[in-house]
């Protein structure tokens, strides 16, 4: 009904906005490649990284190895393709986990309001006092390297954004007449929260979450570069770039292609976001901007 016509209108506007539509296509391609990755890598063993071919080290791009080979003779194209799957796993898990933590807290804080609500929000603010990535770096340095720890570290620094968004949404919805009606009918608070407020408040949070996936990929790459990301030989794109750094003067291709993969994927998400943000509520955006990103 209302939601679907809203989505239809957004799609219509998105298609009209060519640049954003290009971003949308990139994102779709990324998800598609990420899911199919194990089946479309030319050299699956190279992709996973457990084999060395010492006779074909540091080969420049050719028909056989379009992205060249690395220090251990592994096919870079295969590694970059499989890397998309890790980027997809990381971004989906980070955002999913952050939503799982952030949304309920924002919902409760917004609904209860008062002292409890503002106390919860102050805690979220404390987390946001850290510049992006830094809190994740501290967490990752404490937990140690590995895919799981990367996901936990990034999610811990990410959830407060959704708490804020959810808090604002809930605050505006809880004064609606139908919520009063639900209260008068004697519905239990959890029922009101999850059946009546959550479905109406979640849409902008989900839109934001989908768009944040690009940033998650970028930050995971940053963690890898600082040595607190995934463990080698995981073909995560950031780690691939980092591994190529030592030999960049002899073999530029090792770092170039995974970096391009990050750039293009994140660009896809951000171009899509850029269009969507102009389409969706400009007043909210105005408010966000005029208050320096803090509502």
């Amino acid at each position, binding site marked *: 009904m209302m939601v679907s016509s809203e989505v239809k209108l957004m799609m219509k506007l998105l298609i009209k906005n060519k640049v954003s539509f290009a971003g949308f296509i990139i994102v779709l391609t990324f998800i598609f490649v990420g899911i199919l990755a194990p089946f479309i890598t030319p050299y699956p063993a190279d992709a996973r990284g457990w084999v060395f071919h010492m006779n074909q080290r540091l080969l420049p791009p050719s028909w056989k190895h379009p992205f060249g080979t690395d220090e251990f003779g592994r096919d870079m194209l295969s590694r970059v393709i499989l890397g998309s799957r890790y980027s997809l796993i990381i971004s989906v898990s980070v955002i999913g986990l952050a939503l799982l933590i952030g949304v309920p807290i924002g919902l409760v804080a917004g609904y209860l309001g008062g002292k409890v609500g503002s106390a919860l929000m102050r805690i979220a603010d404390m987390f946001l006092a850290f510049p992006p990535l830094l809190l994740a770096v501290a*967490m990752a340095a404490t937990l140690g390297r590995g895919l799981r720890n990367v996901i936990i570290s990034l999610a811990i620094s990410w959830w407060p954004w959704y708490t804020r968004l959810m808090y604002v949404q809930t605050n505006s919805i809880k004064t609606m007449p139908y919520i009063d009606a639900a209260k008068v009918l004697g519905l239990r608070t959890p029922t009101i929260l999850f059946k009546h407020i959550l479905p109406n408040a979640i849409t902008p949070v989900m839109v934001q979450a989908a768009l944040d996936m690009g940033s998650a990929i970028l930050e995971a790459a940053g963690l890898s570069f600082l040595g607190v990301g995934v463990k080698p030989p995981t073909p995560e794109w950031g780690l691939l770039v980092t591994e190529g750094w030592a030999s960049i003067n002899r073999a530029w291709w090792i770092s170039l292609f995974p970096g391009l993969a990050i750039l293009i994927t994140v660009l896809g998400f951000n171009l899509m976001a850029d269009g969507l943000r102009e389409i969706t509520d400009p007043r909210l955006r105005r408010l966000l901007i005029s208050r320096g990103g803090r509502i």
Partner: protein
Amino acid sequence: MGVSREYLIQRTLLLFAVVLGVVIIVFIITRIIPAHPELLWAGPHATLKQIEEARKELMLDKPIYVQLYYYLINFFKGNWGVSWRTHRPVFDDIINYLPATLELVTVAFIIAIVVGIPLGVLAAIKRGSWIDAVIRVLSVTGASVPVFWLAMIAQLIFSSKLGWLPGFKRVDEIVVLETGFRKITGFILLDSLIERNWAVFIDALKHIILPSLVLSVYPMGLSARMTRALMIEVLNEQHFRASIAWGIPKRTALFKYALKNVIAPVIASLGLSFGYTLVGAYLVELIFNWPGLGYYTAMALLSYDYPAIIGSITFVAIFYTVINMIVDIIHAAIDPRVKL
């Protein structure tokens, strides 16, 4: 000026509360989450005796609240532990490395503002045209590029291959020694200006171009996008149309009237991006061997120098909070409507 003393006091109190919160979060991460904090604290090559010392120093045999109490006391005394890599107090190290980072970030921001805002205005005026599309894609690219990768590529092309610009460090040591340059503030560009040491100034300028350009990509894109979005909004405002209709020339209406509405929020958002840029500096400094706080932290990370890692991260978080407060106050001071 719309800023009152009460507001300043209130903001300072809030700042203190946030700093306290930051320190407590760091305490939780460093002391409560790891099973053996003393192992992290003593470093990977520590002897049993050193680990035992770390246990005592961290007071791990005492209850949590006692640990927290002494943690806070030590923190506000500037007693942040000793880096086992440099064998110096972490706090002293941070103060030592800070100017290089600030210099780099400042130059990056100047580039971002000087290039970004005019690009944003241009895109807004020509919105819908191909110029707008190009500026838009470029500015979004700035927010999408992995900055450490861009740094590597820029260094490879402009320094290693073409040899146009130096790719490592802040200044050539030989030039420093030959000219008898001495540090005053730690900001080499500023110090060399004060001493009128042109050789060092030009050398330092050459050194800062590549890393600051790479670092400016994100805030430049951000300021261009922000300027564009806000400018388009202002161009649609009644008061902009009124100023045109009343006969104020377009150029004046754009660059005197509309731009003023845009500048304050753009600077506010740049203030927010300061954190991002600082983190970008972490990555860029490592590539360019730029002896700043980011380089220090990155080296600490690579060698598991835990006190140094945690100390510098805490410091940057607090620094970031202070900057945000200053940006808020500036924002309030520019806008006559805001009475604080």
